[in-house]
């Protein structure tokens, strides 16, 4: 029987609940528990209602639960909104200076903070200390963690946390599990690290939720990666074109945005394809059309990224479902982009981007930089040399004896403009041969993963963040669970193999038009039904279970 714990911390924006949620995740992680943190926040800077759900389990998990064991409330609103989600034996830990309620453990968090002359935001530490006591965690563990996290600023926080700790009572004793603690990473951090592993030189981004934290994270770790440039140009059109200029000059480039920003980059996507310039584009989906719901989640851009761009061309598209996959698949996207000199898209969603997942370091050594094909420095350089496999060797401007002519226009082997039918056909066919080789690449890749009962004749199929709830509930209901990781080239044979023997296939998607099912059907894969959610929130595990039971 797996061990389970779910904690919700809520307050107004600016009250620091997110950071405290991360601390709670870390302290549970310390005990060898597997941790997942779900973030729910609004598009405002102060006020409103933000909350984090911290889940811990003996098994790996990556989806939130509706029912919670502990509710930590910084304000009355949190009690009002989440009290009913508390399990029967659940407990409320609250800031008694600002909340009146006749149950649970009241901690005068604001008074304690004032007592030690702390800033108001430090009231989180009082509640954090109280939670540690409630969970039966030794004070020393709390002290070590806060010292590590806050460094020089730990002193006052420690005093405040200690006071909160003393005022609470132990309700339960957390068990130390016999497994190694794993790092905790958001998907956006993992995307950034995956790209860095495969030699990222330049990251460009115009701020847009939920991709923005890639920009923040890379700007922050620049001091560790002395080859890295992190730039914030004037708009997404600038982003993609500056990116392509840098890639033409030999740099490994990634750009990041959400659907609206990607829409602005689409002409540049087409330029990357025509000029055969490698670039990795991260598209973190949020609900749309248009502005949509900026800080919430959706999977409504799948069809868009698969077909974006004018003209006939291919792009590599991967869809990681957690931090581990985000690391690997972003690295893979960088390798494929350079191997085939084409754009590669990492399609994620707000939950993959901003939720926190356990990350197993062993993945780091599973992917390495693959060098592209370079010019042999003999003979006259032809940027678009008509080779058998359609891949023309690369040279960069600045190399002696090489004149490197890249172009958006149709061109001959040298990159000189052409409108002659024969030359156009030759160049189109060069690219088509490249695309054919690219399509065959899928044979070397893990395009799908299969979980749960592999012999079941009932299966669900998911991509992106729905992996988490899908696997958890699929296993409970004894179903087969298929996750699609690569969308272009499409792993048709792999999916057909995974779905063989399945009589009922249900897609689980956070969009309104069952886009995954549409893609599958286009490849002659029968999808019997879909479970869709389009409220901006991900599937909570209980909710998916309920909906699935009705369908199977």
């Amino acid at each position, binding site marked *: 029987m797996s061990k389970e714990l779910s904690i919700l911390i809520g307050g107004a924006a600016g009250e620091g609940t997110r950071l405290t949620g991360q601390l709670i995740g870390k302290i549970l992680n310390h005990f060898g528990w597997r941790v997942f943190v779900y973030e729910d926040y609004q598009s405002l800077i102060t006020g409103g209602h933000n909350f984090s759900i911290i889940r811990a389990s003996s098994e790996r998990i990556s989806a939130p639960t509706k029912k919670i064991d502990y509710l930590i409330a910084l304000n009355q609103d949190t009690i009002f909104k989440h009290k009913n989600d508390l399990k029967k034996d659940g407990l409320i830990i609250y800031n008694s200076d600002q909340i009146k309620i006749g149950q649970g453990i009241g901690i005068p968090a604001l008074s304690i903070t004032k007592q030690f002359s702390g800033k108001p935001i430090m009231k989180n530490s009082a509640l954090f200390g109280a939670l540690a006591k409630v969970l039966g965690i030794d004070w020393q563990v709390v002290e070590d963690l806060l010292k590590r996290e806050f460094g020089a600023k730990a002193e006052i926080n420690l005093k405040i946390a200690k006071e909160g700790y003393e005022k609470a009572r132990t309700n339960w004793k957390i068990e130390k599990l016999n497994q190694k603690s794993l790092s905790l990473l958001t998907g956006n951090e993992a995307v950034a690290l995956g790209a860095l592993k495969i030699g990222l030189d330049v990251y460009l981004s115009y701020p847009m939720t939920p991709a923005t934290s890639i920009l923040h994270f890379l700007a922050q770790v620049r001091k560790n990666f002395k080859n890295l*440039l992190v730039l914030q140009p004037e708009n997404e059109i600038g982003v993609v074109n500056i990116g392509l200029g840098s890639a033409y000059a030999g740099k490994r480039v990634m750009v990041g945005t959400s659907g609206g920003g990607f829409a602005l980059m689409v002409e540049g996507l087409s330029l990357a394809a025509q000029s055969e310039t490698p670039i990795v584009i991260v598209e973190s989906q949020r609900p749309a059309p248009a502005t949509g719901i900026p800080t919430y989640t959706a999977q409504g851009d799948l069809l868009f990224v698969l077909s974006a761009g004018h003209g006939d061309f291919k792009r590599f598209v991967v869809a990681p479902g957690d931090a581990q996959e985000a690391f690997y698949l972003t690295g893979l996207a960088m390798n494929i982009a350079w191997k085939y000199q084409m754009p590669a898209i990492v399609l994620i969603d707000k939950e993959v981007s901003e939720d926190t997942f356990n990350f197993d*370091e062993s993945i780091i050594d599973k992917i390495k930089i693959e060098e592209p094909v370079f010019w042999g420095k003999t003979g006259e350089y032809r940027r678009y040399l008509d080779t058998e496999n359609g891949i023309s060797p690369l040279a960069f*401007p600045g190399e002696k004896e090489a004149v490197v002519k890249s*172009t958006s226009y149709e061109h001959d082997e040298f990159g000189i403009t052409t409108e002659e039918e024969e030359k156009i056909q030759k160049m189109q066919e060069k690219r088509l041969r490249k695309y054919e080789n690219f399509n065959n690449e899928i044979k070397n890749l893990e395009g799908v993963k299969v979980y749960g009962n592999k012999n079941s004749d009932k299966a669900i199929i998911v991509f992106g963040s729905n992996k988490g709830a899908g696997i958890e509930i699929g296993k409970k209901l004894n179903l087969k669970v298929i996750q699609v990781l690569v969308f272009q080239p499409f792993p048709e044979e792999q999916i057909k193999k995974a779905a063989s023997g399945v009589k009922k296939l249900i897609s689980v998607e956070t969009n309104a038009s069952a886009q995954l099912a549409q893609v599958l059907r286009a490849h002659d894969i029968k999808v019997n039904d879909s479970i869709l959610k389009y409220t901006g929130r991900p599937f909570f595990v209980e909710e998916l279970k309920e909906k699935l039971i009705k369908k199977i």
Partner: protein
Amino acid sequence: MEDNLDTKTKNTWCPGCSNFGILQAIKNAILILEKKGIGRERFVLTTGIGCHAKIVDYLNINTFYGLHGRAIPLAEGIKIANPNLKVLVCAGDGDAYDEGISHLIHAAKRNIDITVLIHNNRNFALTTGQFSATSPKGFVGRSSPEGSLEPAFNPLELMLSSGATFVARAFASKIDHLTNLIVKAIEHKGFSFIDILQPCLIWFNTYDVYNQKVYEFENNDISSKEKAIQGILEWDYNDGKKIPIGVFYKIEKPTFDEEVNSGLIKIKDFGSQIKEILDKKI
């Protein structure tokens, strides 16, 4: 490699087009700079889309034929990636002043060390003669048969206020003068900008007007913004008796490409740095 920088491509500009003058001046400038020790392989030219952009096919140097309006960000990317390159942009008025004006302003603001040459024929020529941002009010074209309602704006005034550190105007027919300006612009450390008046024989033939009105502007205080603005405002791209050409403004400031690249080191293996970050995330 041809010594004269030519390619074998047949030129398709209209006979007598003033773009030929700009092409010749760019070739002259590169040959002069080559003699001064800048190897030919260090030059890169980006273009937008329009008549001007065909120049990539007529110059045997590194080029990136980009999208309409996006020649400047392409050039910025190249310069950031390899500050050792001499990066030139050829763009049309439609490119730089209409479609991609935000990039022009921001590149000037950053003072990135690239040279922007505008083939300003004051109309969209390759799309058969519509008004552009520097067409005078009343411009009669196929999209404005009754005369355009929008007055021209003055791109030099915009460049000066955006932070460009080298601001000049030239006339495509005065090839020696233009050659000299291009050499100076490339040698300038920082964002250099030349608006080149480029008569369009077919849609907006301004040869006679320019021949009559253009004069070489003498500026003995090139770092003065006040002096620069006086010269720049002498002609507003709509109407005026005289049109000054020459360098209006030139100052030295730190460049963006230099600042972003400071402290960069090539790293071969990233695994250990990644593990170091992960250790803090437990």
